[in-house]
């Protein structure tokens, strides 16, 4: 399955802004109502962007409810879930500890039975816990098309740094087995992750990472990213293409459009003007690139 060229992101809806707390406050006020979020998604849809890539934030539950109520309107619409919403778990770990968090978020009485039965902590159990957490996060998307499921960068990169390669593989295997869709990874360390995924037998993975003209959050360096894209088998999703706001939109988009192996471009914008402009720039530079290839 080929991913859509343009993916609409959700940072702007949840007050995530990497360069200004003031802007994030303004966004928080603007998107107070879930309806405003859906209206903005509809603006992107009107521009032909039918894929919404979003974190498993609590407020997405309501958005999904609204989408399910209008199946005709959203028949071509897809969501690429990104799990987990890390702050939810981070706050829970601070408050309840690691065990308490698992108890709170693992559904059913799985955890109770694990102890009651006197079962030892063997490798299978931890993978099962992760699988149950994936199921818990996926619940909100029931009945909605989710052809790609991402694991969030903070978890990917934590597992990467801890050398928990089997866990990264287990996510891949479970998403394929249970949901029969594409497993994918968000990371801030794309070249390093690709090496590890290949080492556990995952070929040509979908990896979403910062890719931009100024090298912002491209760990290991821009040159290594460019080389990786040019020479390796990877289905890249470019995010943070504006480099956190450091690059003018046109220039920023031209850069990512001209790179090889960038299958999709993820962008977030909260106004109609910015949405239309971004989509048009991507179409314009893609057309130029296609023209050059033919020529």
């Amino acid at each position, binding site marked *: 399955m080929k991913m859509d060229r343009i993916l609409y992101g959700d940072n702007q809806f949840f007050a995530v802004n990497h360069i200004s707390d003031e802007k994030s406050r303004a966004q928080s006020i603007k998107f107070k109502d879930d309806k405003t979020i859906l209206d903005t998604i509809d603006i992107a849809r009107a521009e032909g962007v039918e894929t919404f890539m979003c974190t498993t934030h609590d407020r997405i539950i309501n958005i999904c409810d609204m989408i399910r109520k209008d199946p005709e309107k959203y028949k071509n619409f897809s969501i690429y879930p990104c799990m987990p919403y890390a702050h939810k778990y981070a706050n829970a770990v601070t408050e309840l500890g690691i065990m308490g968090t698992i108890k709170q978020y693992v559904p059913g009485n799985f955890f109770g039975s694990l102890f009651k039965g006197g079962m030892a902590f063997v490798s299978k159990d931890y993978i099962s816990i992760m699988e149950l957490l994936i199921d818990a996060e996926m619940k909100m998307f029931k009945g909605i098309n989710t052809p790609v499921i991402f694991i969030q960068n903070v978890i990917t*990169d934590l597992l990467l*740094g*801890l050398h928990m390669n089997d866990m990264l593989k287990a996510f891949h295997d479970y998403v394929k087995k249970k949901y029969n869709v594409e497993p994918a990874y968000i990371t801030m360390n794309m070249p390093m992750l690709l090496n590890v995924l290949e080492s556990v037998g995952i070929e040509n993975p979908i990896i979403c990472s910062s890719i931009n003209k100024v090298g912002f959050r491209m760990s290991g360096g821009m040159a290594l990213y460019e080389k990786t894209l040019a020479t390796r088998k990877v289905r890249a999703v470019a995010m943070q293409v504006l480099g956190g706001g450091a690059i003018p939109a046109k220039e920023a988009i031209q850069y990512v459009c001209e790179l090889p192996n960038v299958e999709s471009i993820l962008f977030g914008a909260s106004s109609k003007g910015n949405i239309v402009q971004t989509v048009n720039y991507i179409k314009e530079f893609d057309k130029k690139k296609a023209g050059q290839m033919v020529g």
Partner: protein
Amino acid sequence: MIKIALIGAGKMGLSHLAILGAHPDVQIVGVADTSKMVTDVLEKYSGFNCFADYKKMLDATKPEAVVVAAPTKYHGEIVGELLKRGIHVFAEKPFCLNVKEGAELVKLAKEKKVVNQVGYHNKFIGTFEEVKKIVLSGKLGEINHFLGEAYGPVVIKKKQGTWRADPKEGGGCLLDYASHVIDLINYLVAPISKIHGALLKPIYSDTVEDAVYSLMETENKITGVLSVNWSEETYRKMSTSITITGSKGKIISDASELKVYFKTDDTPAGYSKGWTSKYVTDLTEEVDFYLRGEEYSAQLDYFVKAIQGKVPNIKNTFESAWITDRVIDQIKNQKNN
């Protein structure tokens, strides 16, 4: 390769472990934690050599350096043991719950000539580093006021029974959020030496404060205000900021955006009369491995480089963290008066 071990694999410990695990000059030789589940997972999936008893780990793995992310109440004992063994130490913040004990550790670290660092990561954020440069340039004129703030949504409902609610374990907002801001003021303005008044207010917690407000004065007589509240759900995550007002200009900075105002054209390079804004994206150096902010990788890289002798051990030393402990102690005492 530098042989490093971790003591305390909680949230901060695991974050440090992952960053060190990806560092090309570091070999993780051991992890000590009292949670069997955590050490089981780390042994099984990461292949780390894990121990329940940190002293046994030190004996068995002989690390050159150790990262201490155990609860603050154990810092005194653990750091003392590490220093006696001549091991380089990176300790999480706050440094030590007991000021007298902290002073002894500062002295011991100097005697043993080991690299010593505490995890006040704000000093590795580009915007705050820029504030330091501007202050040092003297272009703000005479500084007459500062405002140090931090807000975030840690405790936003009634709860009990977690370590954060126990004042003896370092569970309040003063030791947690406020310590970061105090440390930043000490660094950017001047060490705080006098507390003119302090309010420690519980909002949802029963036994500890959720907010800290204080009037304070630095050793060079600059006065200012501390305003910290971790029961602030209008913030998505912790947001730390500092405002510094001088006779010739003013700085407002948080971790992502820096705004500077100058009255005249007499400014540092890169600024002009009136307002200038800069963003952390322009002021931050990229890191080799990113987990949750460049500053977390940068501070550990600095620790590694200090051990290698590539940078001086002058940022976030035990001594600077101890000065912050002393201010925390003064605020507590002021409140009791």
